């Protein structure tokens, strides 16, 4: 009783970055593809390194909103799982970056405003064939705390390209981007999170699949409808008790989103993001036939749209494995097996995904690689472990609630 009374409710109020008049001026225009990609790299952080660490990996991502492509630039730092996310424009020969920063280990956040002037490298980046060399780009600017005007100086200097080995390396966001409990501005397992997750550095997602009453696959993690994941609606008990019509009308996720169907989620991935990997974590014990049908449908849609996308059915336990083996075409259905290497062989899974507590298991990972399969590890959240698995392990992907931390460690490796 006393413990419950003393529990703190933490909250992150995301700052509103819309107040930079220079960035909003009519002459500020979107950046070209070449400028954006040339800007990507590992930067040394000078002013501000005491807050964010000494290096930052800067990378662009995109989503499609209302038929418009929206580009975001993210900077991943080595200290306190910090990152910044912004948008970029060019104005009078300079490049402006406007956004916010956040530390995942705390509720610290604030605005960040950056400029690359002509003499600091924007003339290179805005040129027709930008070639960037170490020291050729300097990003200057300011950051602030919460909604305060940014006045604390920060400087980035380009040092090298982003690491890309091994490639492709999957930075997989748990529950489509991170847990709701990590105080993100959108809810886990939501379409809104899928649209946002690349900003955190993810190249793929893991989503939790359950069946509503009536058999519609939906995204929901927990066994019951609860206040960790949803607003108070009066509906209690397993989501499987309710039809999708009932859930869609009465249940809202923590930040107000609807529980999406699996089809909603994959439609978003295929047509509105650049994500390249989806791990369907099957949280129920029944037939996987409907999930397999949807997997097949969206792999075909992705191929038709010219997208390079893998969608795998996750096999986390023996029940799911048996249901998967009962599928007539299981051998050709891309799957990911969390069980033993023998079960990987039995299920014809293309990916083996052991729990991180087993260690780097380099011998087993090498064995899997010899068979032409990949190996992912889950769920890595402690920065020291992430660093260690990237530096000493041979995995092809990491599932995490902190994709920005994995992105930092991979890109600066």
């Amino acid at each position: 009783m006393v413990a419950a009374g003393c529990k703190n409710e933490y909250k992150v109020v995301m700052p509103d970055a819309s107040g930079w008049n220079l960035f909003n001026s009519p002459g500020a225009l979107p950046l070209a593809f070449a400028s954006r990609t040339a800007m990507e790299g590992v930067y040394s952080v000078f002013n501000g390194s005491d807050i964010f660490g000494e290096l930052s990996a800067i990378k662009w991502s995109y989503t499609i909103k209302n038929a418009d492509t929206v580009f975001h630039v993210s900077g991943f730092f080595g200290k306190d799982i910090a990152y910044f996310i912004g948008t970029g424009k060019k104005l009078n020969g300079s490049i402006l970056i406007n956004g916010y920063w956040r530390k995942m280990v705390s509720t610290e956040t604030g605005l960040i405003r950056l400029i690359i002037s002509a003499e600091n490298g924007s003339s290179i980046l805005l040129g027709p064939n930008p070639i960037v060399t170490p020291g050729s780009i300097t990003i200057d600017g300011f950051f602030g705390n919460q909604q305060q005007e940014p006045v604390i100086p920060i400087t980035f200097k380009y040092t090298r390209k982003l690491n890309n080995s091994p490639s492709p390396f999957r930075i997989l966001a748990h529950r489509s981007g991170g847990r709701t409990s990590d105080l993100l501005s959108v809810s886990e397992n939501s379409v809104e999170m899928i649209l946002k997750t690349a900003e955190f550095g993810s190249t793929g997602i893991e989503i939790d699949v359950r069946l509503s009453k009536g058999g519609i696959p939906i995204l929901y993690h927990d066994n019951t409808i609860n206040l960790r994941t949803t607003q108070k609606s009066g509906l209690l008990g397993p989501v499987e008790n309710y039809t999708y019509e009932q859930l869609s009308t009465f249940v809202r996720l923590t930040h107000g989103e609807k529980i999406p169907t699996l089809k909603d989620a994959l439609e978003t991935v295929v047509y509105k993001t650049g994500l390249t990997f989806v791990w369907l974590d099957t949280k129920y014990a029944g037939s996987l036939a409907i999930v397999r049908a949807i997997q097949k449908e969206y792999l075909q849609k992705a191929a038709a749209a010219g997208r390079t996308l893998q969608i795998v059915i996750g096999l986390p336990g023996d029940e799911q494995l048996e249901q998967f083996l009962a599928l007539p075409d299981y051998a050709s259905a891309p799957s990911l097996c969390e069980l033993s290497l023998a079960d990987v062989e039995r299920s014809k899974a293309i990916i083996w995904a052991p729990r991180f507590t087993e260690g780097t298991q380099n011998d087993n990972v090498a064995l899997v690689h010899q068979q032409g399969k990949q190996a992912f590890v889950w769920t890595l959240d402690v920065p020291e472990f992430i660093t260690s698995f990237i530096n000493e392990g041979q995995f092809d992907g990491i599932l995490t609630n902190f994709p920005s931390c994995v992105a930092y460690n991979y890109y600066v490796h």
Partner: protein
Amino acid sequence: MVVLIVACNSLSAQDAVKPNPPGIAKKHSLVLDIGGGYSNYLSPLNFKATGIEKDYVRSGPAATIRILWQPQYRLRLGLETGFCNFYSYRLVNGNKKGKVSVSAIPVMVVWSMAIVKRLDIFAGFGTYMLTSKLDYEGKVISKLNSLGTSVALAYKIPISKTTAIAAEAKWMNAFQTKDDVVSAELRVVWKFFQWDGRKGK
């Protein structure tokens, strides 16, 4: 609450309990405490859905039944159950209508003591057995147990050697589902069984 119980304990020691004289047998009793009234749901109901109209009802009937072992000491111990309507709402979504109601049956271990003459405090800890009823495109009844607590103050007026009537204010809190409810009840307290304890020195 711990502070309140300690404070009450101290008050009770001074004002409420007079020890039996030496050589007088100490009486033990079993007390049935039963009553009903009205409750009001206090927690925010924050389910927000665009384009959906909702009409909340936060008050409803409440009832409590307790059986207490009442030794001739300060603290009494017993079990409590009852019923409480937490909240309900009607919903209009276009041309479709629905209703949700949530009620609870508490099952608690309860401690009680007199603070001053005629004024008792109760503190309970246990579980709320919640029932959710949905009527929208079909009916669904779901159940969930949520750990919780309750605190009540009751003012007793004796009407015979074994019977009293009481007015009680109670606060109920289900942790997991973050439900806070207050109730006001009228109660009948009946000492239905008594026996002698050990002799005092």
